[in-house]
């Protein structure tokens, strides 16, 4: 299966929907009835101040955490996501804030971890890796993101922070069939690479993928995303079209106060 040929499953308009999500950590109520809706072919940016609950909500959406209250549905069907692996099976790709690459494994190995192509016939049963295919496809996948890494065989440890992030993004894009969830995907990237990542994300959305991006880079979100959802104190206080919003309005909603235009 090469990068280009992954089909995006046809699905109803709403890809992932979360309603009334409540999550407590001891006495702390991280989420107090959050609602969010990610639509097919749309980039939704989730913004909010530190502690607003963005990462917690993302973790619940991708199966890393279970909500205390509330409902989650994938592609219109109510679902209880058991684990991240389960979310993957359902068609969700995730790029984490902390990268979760295995640094001792090569770039190609990381891209394919858990879904390694095996050689055909009886060798498939033994689990023999098709390393040539992995190498070639990995090169193509990274090239499509504009990433030039000399060798697919170097351990990920040898890459710069930006390159590691690029590999993590490539991995999510490679396997997502219907939706991608990104938590600060460009935090470690320079401006050029950030641009490339979001170009790719936009093209993926045009292909029908549903995208949720969590980011502190609000100006970038305003230009890249279709809709912006603002979180404050564990709830989503507003969800509007990006084209309808200005930076100071977004910040105002994040902080709960009027912020004069710059």
């Amino acid at each position: 299966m090469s990068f280009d040929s992954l089909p995006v499953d046809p699905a109803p308009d709403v890809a992932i929907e979360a309603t009334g999500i409540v999550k407590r950590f001891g006495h702390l109520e991280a989420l107090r009835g959050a609602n969010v809706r990610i639509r097919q072919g749309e980039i939704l940016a989730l913004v909010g101040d530190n502690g607003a609950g963005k990462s917690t909500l993302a973790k619940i959406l991708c199966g890393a955490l279970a909500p205390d209250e509330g409902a989650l549905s994938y592609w219109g069907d109510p679902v209880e996501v058991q684990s991240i692996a389960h979310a993957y099976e359902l068609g969700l790709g995730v790029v984490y804030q902390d990268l979760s690459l295995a640094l001792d494994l090569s770039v190609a190995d990381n891209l394919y971890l858990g879904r390694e192509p095996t050689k055909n016939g009886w060798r498939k049963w033994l689990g023999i890796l098709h390393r040539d295919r992995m190498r070639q496809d990995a090169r193509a996948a990274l090239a499509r993101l504009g990433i030039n890494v000399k060798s697919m065989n170097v351990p990920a440890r040898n890459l710069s922070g930006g390159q590691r992030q690029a590999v993590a993004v490539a991995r999510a894009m490679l396997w997502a069939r219907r939706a991608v969830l990104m938590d600060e995907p460009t935090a470690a990237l320079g401006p050029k690479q950030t641009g490339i990542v979001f170009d790719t994300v936009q093209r993926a959305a045009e292909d029908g993928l549903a995208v949720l991006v969590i980011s502190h880079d609000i100006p970038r979100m305003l230009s890249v995303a279709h809709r912006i959802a603002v979180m404050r104190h564990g709830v989503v206080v507003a969800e509007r079209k990006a084209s309808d919003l200005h930076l100071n309005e977004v910040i105002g909603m994040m902080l709960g106060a009027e912020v004069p235009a710059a």
Partner: protein
Amino acid sequence: MTDETLEVPAARPVADEAVDAVTAADAAPREDRWLDQARRSTAFWIGLAIVLLGVGFGVLSGGAFTRDSNLLSIGLNSSQIMLLAVGMTFLIGAGQLDLSVGFNVIMSSVIAAKVMVAVGGTAEQVAARDYPNLIPAVIAGIVVAILVGAAGGLLNGLLVTRLRINSFIVTLATSGMFYGVALILTSAANVPFLPQEIQTYFGAARDPILGRVPLPLIMALLIAAVFWWVMRRTRFGLHTLAIGSSREAALRAGIDVDRHLVKLFVMMGVLVGMAGLYDLVRYASTNVVGHQTDNLQAISAVVIGGTSLFGGVASIGGSLLGTLIPVMMGNGLIILRVQPFYQLIVVGIILVIAVYLDQRRRGGMA
């Protein structure tokens, strides 16, 4: 490599031509020349050290070290530890340790020996060295040794994954359990009345071609070759290293980490059972007072061989060579009539150096 080396037109989707250009430029595989790879490989350096040791001892001993009978001895001594080192390579590669190996070897050899004697004939026949059921006895012994070893490994694996206790502590505890079982079963004496045939036909057997290489060593090398191949070329090996490198990444990739770890411990147990058979085959007896430092020898061999204690990096070849160093050292010193206790000191020093280099390699890059 810095991010600034990227040359891509800004604010436009990456055009297909650009993709082709990048792909073409990168298409020629830049695999290093084998010499460069060899220079960087720890296995290479250990191989060199072994050759130097061999030559050094050979010269110093006036040829006694390199005599056939001595090389034979070295080969046999190391073949048992090699089996353990192979399994340990996988475990350490996955970020685990198994301290119970030597004691599991004793337990499985003891139980296998008892079964062999029981199946071989009645008590009187066996005491008179008469084995009417020799073949079934031997087969039973082999099967039981492996099953008992595997059961010990399974216990280790379940305790580590279900109770979430780290492997160091678990295997420290099971060391005592396995040894206790063995001592209870034998009242701390070696199992008597094992058929000599297993020693003459297997223990002392040689390869058919040259007639010089002992069969147990050949088998150990063959088994090691299989496991080398599994580590390098299969999904199983890749997942092992992934778990050692980043348990989190492995989990998020959908790997069932707990199940994989149990498999690794059971695999170690199977190799332990085979090593237990080696005792029987070499001496036609068990060795209940031996094996006390098998765990340390195996772990040292693995670490000296280049496998990282941090997990994620492993070398079967290195482990095999790493086994030879303490064995050659001890053997050579005896021949030179130097107190073999110096071997303990030297191996200890080598181990510290190996771990230090491993840390430097990891610390400098992370």
